[in-house]
C-alpha cells in the first residue's frame, strides 16, 4: 500500500450527521411505550429533523446488545433495502461513539449510504443495570466479584476511582464539580429528566453514599427512552434540512490487557483511553486545545476525571485545579462539560444523548451553547473496554 493510500484510511471529513432525534426521556420504568416502539420513534424523529424519508435508511448501528434488532427495524420501517447492520461488542455505554464510527466506516467503505445510529432502553420492560437479583450461580469475571458484594456498576468501578484518587491526590470536590456542571446545564434543558431539580454543593455533600467515593449524585440515572442520529457521506451533507455536523475523527478500543479479569488490567486506575485518545486526535487532526466543548460519559463522575485527563485537558495531578464548577459551564468556562445535563441529569440514554448534544453544539442549537463550538468532543463510557470517542466539527473545520 502506498503512503498516500494509508493516509486516506480515515473518517475525517467523509461523513456528516444530518439528523438527530429522541423520544421523551423518562425515569426508569416510566415509559408508556415498549422499547422497540421507542427506537422507532427516535429514528422517525431523526428523519423528521433531516427531512429524510425513513425508507432511505439502508444501515443500522448500535451497541451494548441493543434489543431493537436491525432487520426488524428495517422491516418495520419498510426500508427499500438493508445493507449494513453493525453491533459494537461489549463495553456497555463505552460503545456510544464506536457505534457512530462503525456506521461512518460502513459509509466510507461503500457498504451503505444512509445509516441510523441509535440506542433504545425501556428498563421497566427489561430490568435495570443497577440491580443484580435473581442470579443463583456465576462464572468467569463475575464469580470473582459478586460473592463479595461487588455486584453492580457502582461497586465495580469505585475501586478504580479510589486508586486513581490515591495515586494523584484527587479530592472529592473535583468529582462534585462534574456533578454540579451536569445539573446546572440540565436546568436550561427542558428535555432533561432533572430539569427543575437543581443541585448545589451542600445538597451534594449531604447526599448519601452509594459506595465510597461515590455519593448519590456521582452516579448516573437509569432511564427509559431512545435516541438516534443519521449519517450520510459528505457529498450529500447539504441536501437535507438541518445544518450538518461533520465527523472529524473517531476511535475505539483499549490498551494492553485492559480486560484482564477480576481487576487485573495492568493500567488499573485509568478510563481505558491511554491508546484511544491519541488515535482520535491523530485522525481528527486536532488536539485538546482545539476542543471547545466536551460531552463526557458519566457512569460515575470519577470516570470523567480520568477520561478528561487521558484526553489531555490536564495532568491528573492538576485535576483539583482544573475541575471547578466555573471552568466546566457554558458558555465561557475553560471547558464546558456535559452541556445537556448528560447521564447524570439529562437522561441516561447510555451515552447516546451525549452524541446528540455534540451535534447540537456544532449546530449552535444547544440549550447551553458553548462559545467555542467548532470542535466538539464526545467521550464514551470510561473504565470499560472497548471504550470509544468521537470528534464532530463544523464545515469550517474541514
Amino acid at each position, binding site marked *: 500500500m502506498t503512503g498516500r493510500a494509508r493516509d486516506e484510511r480515515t473518517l475525517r471529513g467523509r461523513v456528516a450527521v444530518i439528523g438527530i432525534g429522541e423520544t421523551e426521556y423518562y425515569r426508569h420504568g416510566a415509559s408508556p411505550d415498549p422499547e422497540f416502539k421507542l427506537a422507532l420513534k427516535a429514528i422517525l424523529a431523526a428523519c423528521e429533523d433531516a427531512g429524510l424519508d425513513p425508507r432511505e435508511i439502508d444501515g443500522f448501528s448500535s451497541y451494548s446488545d441493543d434489543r431493537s434488532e436491525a432487520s426488524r427495524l428495517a422491516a418495520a420501517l419498510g426500508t427499500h433495502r438493508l445493507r449494513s447492520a453493525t453491533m459494537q461488542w461489549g463495553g456497555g455505554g463505552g460503545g456510544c461513539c464506536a457505534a457512530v464510527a462503525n456506521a461512518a466506516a460502513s459509509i466510507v467503505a461503500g457498504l451503505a449510504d444512509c445509516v441510523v445510529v441509535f440506542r433504545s432502553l425501556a428498563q421497566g420492560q427489561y430490568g435495570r443495570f443497577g440491580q443484580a437479583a435473581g442470579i443463583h450461580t456465576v462464572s468467569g469475571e463475575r464469580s470473582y466479584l459478586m460473592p*463479595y458484594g461487588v455486584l453492580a456498576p457502582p461497586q465495580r468501578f469505585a475501586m478504580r476511582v479510589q486508586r486513581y484518587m490515591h495515586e494523584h491526590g484527587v479530592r472529592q470536590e473535583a468529582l462534585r464539580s462534574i456533578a454540579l456542571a451536569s445539573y446546572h446545564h440540565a436546568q436550561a434543558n427542558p428535555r432533561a429528566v432533572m430539569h427543575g431539580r437543581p443541585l448545589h454543593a451542600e445538597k451534594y455533600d449531604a447526599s448519601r453514599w452509594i459506595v465510597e467515593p461515590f455519593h448519590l449524585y456521582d452516579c448516573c440515572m437509569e432511564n427509559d427512552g431512545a435516541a438516534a442520529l443519521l449519517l450520510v457521506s459528505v457529498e450529500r451533507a447539504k441536501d437535507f434540512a438541518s445544518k450538518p455536523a461533520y465527523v472529524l475523527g473517531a476511535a475505539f478500543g483499549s490498551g494492553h490487557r485492559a480486560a484482564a*479479569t477480576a481487576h487485573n488490567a495492568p493500567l488499573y486506575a485509568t478510563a481505558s483511553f491511554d491508546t484511544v485518545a491519541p488515535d482520535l486526535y491523530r485522525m481528527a487532526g486536532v488536539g485538546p486545545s482545539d476542543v471547545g466543548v466536551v460531552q463526557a460519559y458519566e457512569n460515575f463522575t470519577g470516570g470523567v476525571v480520568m477520561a478528561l485527563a487521558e484526553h489531555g485537558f490536564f495532568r491528573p495531578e492538576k485535576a483539583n485545579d482544573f475541575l471547578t464548577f466555573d471552568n466546566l459551564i457554558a458558555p465561557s468556562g475553560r471547558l464546558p462539560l456535559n452541556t445537556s445535563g448528560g447521564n447524570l441529569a439529562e437522561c441516561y440514554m447510555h451515552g447516546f444523548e451525549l452524541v446528540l448534544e455534540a451535534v447540537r453544539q456544532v449546530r449552535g442549537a444547544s440549550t447551553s451553547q458553548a462559545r467555542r463550538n467548532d470542535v466538539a468532543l464526545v467521550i464514551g463510557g470510561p473504565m470499560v473496554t472497548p471504550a470509544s470517542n468521537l470528534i464532530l466539527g463544523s464545515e469550517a473545520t474541514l
Partner: protein
Amino acid sequence: MSGPTHYLPVGLPIPVGEPDGLSTPYWMGLRENRLLVQRCDRCCTWQFGPEWICHNCHSFDLTWTDVEPTGRIYSWERVWHPSHPALKQCAPYLALLVELPHAGGVRMVGNLPGDPRQTVVIGTEVKGVFEHHLEADPVFSLLHWWLQRDADASDSRSGA
C-alpha cells in the same frame, strides 16, 4: 443460614467454574484452604483470572500453583447502597482489591472483615482467610483478607 463466620449474608450469587472447567481448580483449591494461581510452565508468568493461554508467551501449559495468601491493599471501597436483596440489612460493608507481590502482582477482590467503618489504608498488609459455605448448594468457599496485624494477634491468642 448465615453464621458468624460469613461476612456477607447468604443469598448472593454462588461462584462456580465455567462449563468448560477453566477456573474449576481455583474454586476447588479454596475449598481445601489453598490459594491457587495459574503460572506458565515455560516463561513463569503469573496469571489471574485464569485463561487457557499464557498472555506473555502463548504457551498452553499453565500450572495451578500454590500461593501464600498474603498481600497488600491495592484499593478498596465501602459499599452503602445494596445492589442485591440479600444485602439490604448489612450496609456498609468493605471490599478490597489485594495485590500479591510474590505472585507477579496479580490482584484479587475480597472482603475485609471487622469494623465496616474502619479507616482503610492503601498499601496495608493483609492475610487471606478462607470462608467456607458448606450449607450452600452448590458448596463453595471464598477468600477474605484480614489486616496482617489482626491476623497476627488472632494467631497469638489461639497459640498458633
